[in-house]
């Protein structure tokens, strides 16, 4: 790999052993993919995937300490993934005790992040690109982010350039201020290997469409046709929310780091079918395929007829618009089903800054959620299931990401609303 003078100096050890080792790690990583040079990160803020002080991640926190002690600190401020639990989320005493144990590195981790220059105490979310949080890259920015759903969003909806970096490497990239140039950072790497033709009778739910795409494309780039029929061509908040949820499902059920949506996402608008590789294959998603995908999910509850213990929505974290929309959906369905409160304790997940703005802008809706038994939390539901006691509980969700990583049972959004409000499926 060809290094510039700044990086050659780091390689000689002029900025200390820790920086030298960080550079060598990134060189080894880049060379595995044929990278010939490092390119400067141009995004204003980084985003990391480490937000939970998990017991099993102690080696990560030891490594972070080594970097701090060695003077290897990020060049820019950053946000990171959500915390694992919050005090106001309902838990039993036993669950609380286990949470304390399994997240015993939380304080240590947060202290280390402070020393490394995290944006602020509210910077713990998987959707830092929301306006209320403010980590919003520009089109064409080079990023060194991790968090599969955030990388997918930044690449696809914003048009920034970021590989699917791993935890720790994203931190090292931001310490160095450079990333190796390959894959999704290059024009060629951003071309589509698949054409996805959406031929459903109505707009498919994003988490199901994303799952179908993730299963089929795995780590390839899809070019999706047909969604503008329902979504239109304006990239407003409603469309961004749809793409956020679709992308998260394709990134977790597969490894999709970038997708283009015809007439909607910035590169597809700019370049159209020039983005499609000549040898791209075609995959049709119709109603039958969506049904087949949902029916394929394993249900790992011991008692299939058991009553759900808790429900989660907002994985990835809800936008302010989604919090308002889901409040209305539940309110309307409760009235229709003659109920006052949700039938299952329910957690809506959103960034702390988004939650605060929601409470400020929609105090009536925030109050309504409390009245009907819904808690709004900044936690990560995946981390919530790291606790063996909470993981054993019967969780229901409309998040395909949460379904994949836990014993949670998946229901479509429509089904979940009916279950929560006492309706019939």
């Amino acid at each position, binding site marked *: 790999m060809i290094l510039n003078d700044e990086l050659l100096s780091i390689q000689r050890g002029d900025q200390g052993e820790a920086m030298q080792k960080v550079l060598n790690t990134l060189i080894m*990583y880049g060379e595995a993919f044929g990278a010939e040079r490092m390119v400067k990160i141009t995004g204003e803020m980084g985003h990391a995937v*480490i937000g939970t002080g998990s017991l099993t991640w102690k080696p990560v926190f030891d490594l972070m300490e080594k970097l701090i002690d060695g003077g290897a600190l990020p060049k820019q401020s950053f946000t990171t993934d959500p915390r694992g639990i919050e005090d106001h989320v309902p838990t039993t005493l036993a669950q609380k005790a286990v949470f304390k144990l399994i997240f015993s590195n939380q304080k240590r981790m947060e202290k280390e992040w402070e020393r490394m220059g995290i944006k602020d105490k509210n910077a713990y979310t998987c959707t830092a690109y929301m306006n209320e949080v403010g980590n919003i890259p520009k089109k064409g920015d080079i990023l060194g982010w991790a968090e599969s759903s955030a990388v997918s969003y930044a690449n696809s909806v914003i048009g920034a350039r970021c590989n699917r970096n791993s935890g*720790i490497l994203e931190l090292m990239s931001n310490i160095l201020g450079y990333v190796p140039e390959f894959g999704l950072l290059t024009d060629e790497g951003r071309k589509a290997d698949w054409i996805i033709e959406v031929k459903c009778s109505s707009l498919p739910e994003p988490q199901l469409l994303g799952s179908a795409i993730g299963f089929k494309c795995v780590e390839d780039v899809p070019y999706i046709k047909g969604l503008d029929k329902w979504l239109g061509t304006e990239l407003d908040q409603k469309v961004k929310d749809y793409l956020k949820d679709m992308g998260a499902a394709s990134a977790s059920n597969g490894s999709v780091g970038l997708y283009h949506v015809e007439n909607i996402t910035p590169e597809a608008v700019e370049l159209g079918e020039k983005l499609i590789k000549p040898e791209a294959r075609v995959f049709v998603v119709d109603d039958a395929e969506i049904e087949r995908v949902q029916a394929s999910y394993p249900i790992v509850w011991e008692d299939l007829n058991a009553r759900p213990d808790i429900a989660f929505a907002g994985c990835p974290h809800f936008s302010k618009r989604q919090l308002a929309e889901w409040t209305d959906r539940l309110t309307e369905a409760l009235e229709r089903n003659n109920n006052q409160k949700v039938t299952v304790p329910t957690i809506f997940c959103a960034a702390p800054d988004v939650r605060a703005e929601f409470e400020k802008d929609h105090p009536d809706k925030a109050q309504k959620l409390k009245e009907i038994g819904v808690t709004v939390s900044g936690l990560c539901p995946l981390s919530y299931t790291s606790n063996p006691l909470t993981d054993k509980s019967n969780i229901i969700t409309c998040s395909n990401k949460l379904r994949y990583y836990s014993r949670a049972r998946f229901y479509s959004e429509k089904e979940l609303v009916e279950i929560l409000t006492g309706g019939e499926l």
Partner: protein
Amino acid sequence: MSRTFKGRAVVPGKVDAEAIVTHAGFNTLANLKTAGSFMNPKGVLKDHNNPEIYGKLIPGKALCLPETIGSTTGGMVLYCASCMKVGPACMLFPHKADTLAVAGAVLTANWSDYPIVLVDDLGEEFLEYVKEGQMIHVSEDGTVVVED
């Protein structure tokens, strides 16, 4: 009897280990998120979406796989598993390995006492040929010998 495959040593090393094989993507977080802790001290694979390897042990094994999938914690989780001595001895891919798998192996090579060797580009036939339980011998130059 044995069969030899030649690949690219991304993280070179010498390994003799028993094969564990998945033909579907290996979701690192789903499999190993609690590995090495009191919740999963032995390193049992926990991805219920992948019945081919669910419930099997990973420590010290030669993991033969098409790619890793899912969360970008992937490389970091491999690094933690390695530090806690519940990681695979090596990862062997028929094609070019993905970013998260390479990140994990590179992190272990530079920052852990227990590096995970990674060899890719072994050819389509590798994953068709190798079976669970076969002994695998990996050389520094990326040569992989599968014993029948």
